[in-house]
Structures are given as structure tokens and as C-alpha cells.
């Protein structure tokens, strides 16, 4: 009963959003996201509301599981694009073993990306355009630093989004993926500094809590804000 009330509220919010009168709470959400560097749909402008218009970028509508899955799909696209670039031309100081493991990670992320694409079918967002201009792909330090950022952020994203998933099957699938991301994160962290595999203190900004032995967890708006600098495509977030 209570949940129905909540859903109705969401619908009202959505309707008012489409009519151009954003509630204060939604406005703050959008304003916050905007400040964080995410391109947004011009809220309230009726003629711009077509979220499927390719020129409008990708829309993540968190009203249901499709929104959460598309969110995961977006992040996996980003990760896969990064590792494809690394694996195709690894930094010259990478060892044979490192090259082999980065090949593995590349294909894990490709597997995740393609899985979400197929699972979403016609509901899938399009391909994102990425921006890796801030990464020096010839430098092991730069590549490993970026890889760690992507993996830790991925862990935070899945941990924070789990509670939004309504389908048991997809909740378990997200669980199956997040532990692999955590394995990647630990491996890459150990490459940068052996023993830092689970340095939760360093992950405080991503929602980790060392005293509780708890890993990172972030809400989608914070994750997208952090990922924003790597994504050229406008990502519109609604019903968060």
C-alpha cells in the first residue's frame, strides 16, 4: 500500500516534469547533477522531451529496472572502450602477464556490455561516445590510475544501484558482475601498490567505510558525475 503511494507520487512528479513544472526536489536533483557536469535535457521544455531522439543523447529513466540496466550498460560501455584501447596498445612497460590479464579484463567488460545490450533489446540506449583525452595511454601510471578509477567506481555503482533493482534475476546478475569488477579493482590496485587491494580508507569518497569493513557504494547521480568527464554523449537522468 505504502509502495503504491510512492509510485503514484513518482508518476505525479514525472507528469509535472513533462508539463514543465518541476518539483523542488527534482529540481535540486537536476541542478546538482548539472553542476557535476552531466548534460541534461532542458527540463520543462515540452518540445524537447522526446527521450528517444538520438540528438538528445541517452536517457536513463530510473522508474524501473530498464533504467538501472541501461545505467549499468552505459558504465560497461565506458569500461569496455577503455580496455579495448589499452589492450590494443598497452604501455611499453607492461609485462607479458599484465598484458594477458588486461586482455582478460577487456573481454570481461565486453561480455558485460554485450550481455546488457542483448538483455535490454529494444529498450537499450545507443552507443556512447567516450572521451579519454585525459588519459595518456603510453604511460603505465596513467593507464593503471584510470583503470583503478573505473573499477572502483564500477563497484560503487553496482553496490549503490542494487537496492533499486526490482527483478530478483537482475539483482543476482548485478551481483555476479560486481564481484568480478571488485576482483579487477583489487588486481589493479595491487599493481599500483601491492597490498592496497581493499584499502577502504582510500575509498571513503566513494562511500566506503573502513570501520565497518564496507566497500564503496554511490547513488547513480554521483557515479555519473564522476564518469562524466569520460563521456561525450549527453546522459539525461530522470525519475532518480
Amino acid at each position, binding site marked *: 500500500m505504502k509502495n503504491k503511494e510512492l509510485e503514484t507520487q513518482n508518476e505525479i512528479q514525472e507528469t509535472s516534469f513533462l508539463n514543465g513544472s518541476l518539483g523542488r526536489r527534482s529540481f535540486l536533483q537536476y541542478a546538482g547533477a548539472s553542476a557535476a557536469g552531466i548534460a541534461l535535457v532542458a527540463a520543462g521544455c515540452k518540445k524537447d522531451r522526446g527521450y528517444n531522439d538520438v540528438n538528445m543523447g541517452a536517457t536513463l529513466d530510473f522508474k524501473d529496472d530498464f533504467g538501472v540496466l541501461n545505467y549499468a550498460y552505459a558504465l560497461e560501455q565506458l569500461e569496455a572502450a577503455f580496455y579495448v584501447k589499452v589492450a590494443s596498445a598497452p604501455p611499453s612497460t607492461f609485462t607479458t602477464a599484465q598484458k594477458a590479464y588486461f586482455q582478460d579484463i577487456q573481454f570481461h567488460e565486453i*561480455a558485460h556490455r554485450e550481455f546488457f545490450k542483448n538483455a535490454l533489446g529494444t529498450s537499450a540506449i545507443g552507443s556512447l561516445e567516450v572521451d579519454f583525452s585525459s588519459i595518456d595511454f603510453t604511460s603505465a601510471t596513467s593507464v593503471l590510475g584510470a583503470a583503478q578509477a573505473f573499477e572502483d567506481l564500477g563497484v560503487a555503482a553496482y553496490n549503490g544501484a*542494487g*537496492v533499486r533493482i526490482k527483478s530478483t534475476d537482475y*539483482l543476482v546478475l548485478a*551481483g555476479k558482475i560486481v564481484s568480478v569488477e571488485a*576482483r579487477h579493482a583489487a588486481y589493479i590496485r595491487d599493481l599500483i601498490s601491492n597490498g592496497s587491494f581493499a584499502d577502504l580508507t582510500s575509498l571513503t569518497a566513494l562511500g566506503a567505510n573502513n570501520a565497518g569493513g564496507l566497500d564503496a557504494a554511490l547513488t547513480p547521480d554521483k557515479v555519473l558525475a564522476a564518469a562524466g568527464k569520460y563521456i561525450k554523449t549527453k546522459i539525461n537522468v530522470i525519475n532518480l
Partner: protein
Amino acid sequence: MNILNILDEIEKVDGEIYERLSPRRKAMKDFFNVGKKISFAALPLALGSMFQKAYGQSNPTSVTEVLNFALALEYLEWNYYNRALTLATATYIPTGAPRAAITTIRDHERAHVDLLKGALNITGADSYTFADFDFTAGGIFGDVYTNYQTFLKVALAFEDTGVRAYKGQAPILKGNAVLTTALQIHSVEARHASHIRQMVAANVTGASGLKPWIAYTGNGNDTGVTAADGVYAGEQNTTQAGIQITAINGTAVTQSQAAESFDEFLTGSDVKKIANLFIPIKKLT
């Protein structure tokens, strides 16, 4: 973090939850006010205290069962690492990076024990201590207290089991704020597993090819420790939600990468079977 979802989940178990809560509106109000001030990580403790107020005694069955189950596994892990670190034998776990890593892991397991005890409103002594465990598993790992390689093999089994165990409980906690906490523990266990796998690869005879992730083998067990077959049963799976991952959409994803890219879950009863190998008397039921 949606309190209404939590209540909805409880309603499935206890149809009278709203009635129980309504005469205690102050408890709810206190809880919400407290919720604004406390950190995310402390939430389970606050939840525990709210349920305590609503029920007088204990949490609803399903949530309690999951938390107690998780607590038992954390007791097992903490006692295992703590024993190894407190043994006087200097050569057992080498000083330096190995000892530091095991200490990090040990401390996380203790933090999980304390967090779960708090969520369950358990005060006082731990309900499982070192004396309750037999880490040789009845002699299968007979030299676990003296041989570093054996120690690492058992640690590996515990960490990979932990990852699978938390994953398997996620559906019961679906939509519940406790789920986020459980997921945060789950991925820490996965980080541990990744590191222990690297320690095994570096130190255990014949295991140099072990990857930080679980590679494909016919029976799912990529560790070469046959006694741990049960820990890895099903990890060879390459089909997710009916979608074949190997070579998906014409990509070059290999069978092993397909199996590696998704960790599988274990049911509670399968995890208990594994854990009970190390618990002679106070077995998990």
C-alpha cells in the same frame, strides 16, 4: 535507501508489521530523525534498534536468518585469520607484505562481525570462538596451522565461498536498505579473494597460473585443490539469463573469459555444507 520497501518486505513475513509499528510511531519518528544524522554504514545498527522497538525482541525471520548466516561465516573467517596471525611461528605467514595483507583481511572480517552483531542487537561475547572450529576439516587440511601453502589454499576457499554466499542471499534482501550493506561486504570479500588468489599463484606449488578471477574448468574449480570442488561447483557456467556469453554477438570472448566475467552464487544450504566441514559440533542448520 527506502524504508517503505523494507517494511513491505517485512509485511510479506509479518502481515501485522504496520499495526505493530503504528502504536510506536515515536520509535519510527526517532528512527527517521536519527537516520538523517548517522552515516550510511551505521544504518544496520539503527535498523536493528528500530526492529527491536517494533517487535520487542527480534528481527523478522528472513532478514534475521540472512544476517545470522552471514555472521556465522564472518566468525569462521575472522577466527581463521586471527589464529594464523597470533601463532608465534615466524615462518608460518612471512612478515612483510603477506602478513600485512592477511592482517588487512582479518581486520575487515572483524569489522563485519561487529557490524552484523550490531545489526542483530547482539551484545556480549562472540557465539563462535576459535575452539568451535576445526580448520583442518577433519584432517583434509592437516597441516593448515604449520604450512603456509595449505593456509593460503583454505583462505582461498573461504574467500571465494564468501563471495558466492553473500550473492546467494541478495534476493532475500531485495529492495531493503540492508541489501546495500550486504553488497558492500560482498565486494570486499571479492577484493580479498582476488588478492589471496595472487598470493596462492605466487606461493603454492603448481598454482602459478591461478588468476585473480575464477577461470573456466570443467567442474568450475580452477584452484587445483580437489577438496574445494564444492566451493566452485557451477562456476563453469557461461550462460546468463539465457544468453550465451562465449563469443557473444560475434565478439572474441572465449569460454574461459565468459565464465570469468560472471561469478556464480551458492545457495545457503550449499554454503552451510562447506562451512560445516570446519565446524565439528555447533553446526549451521
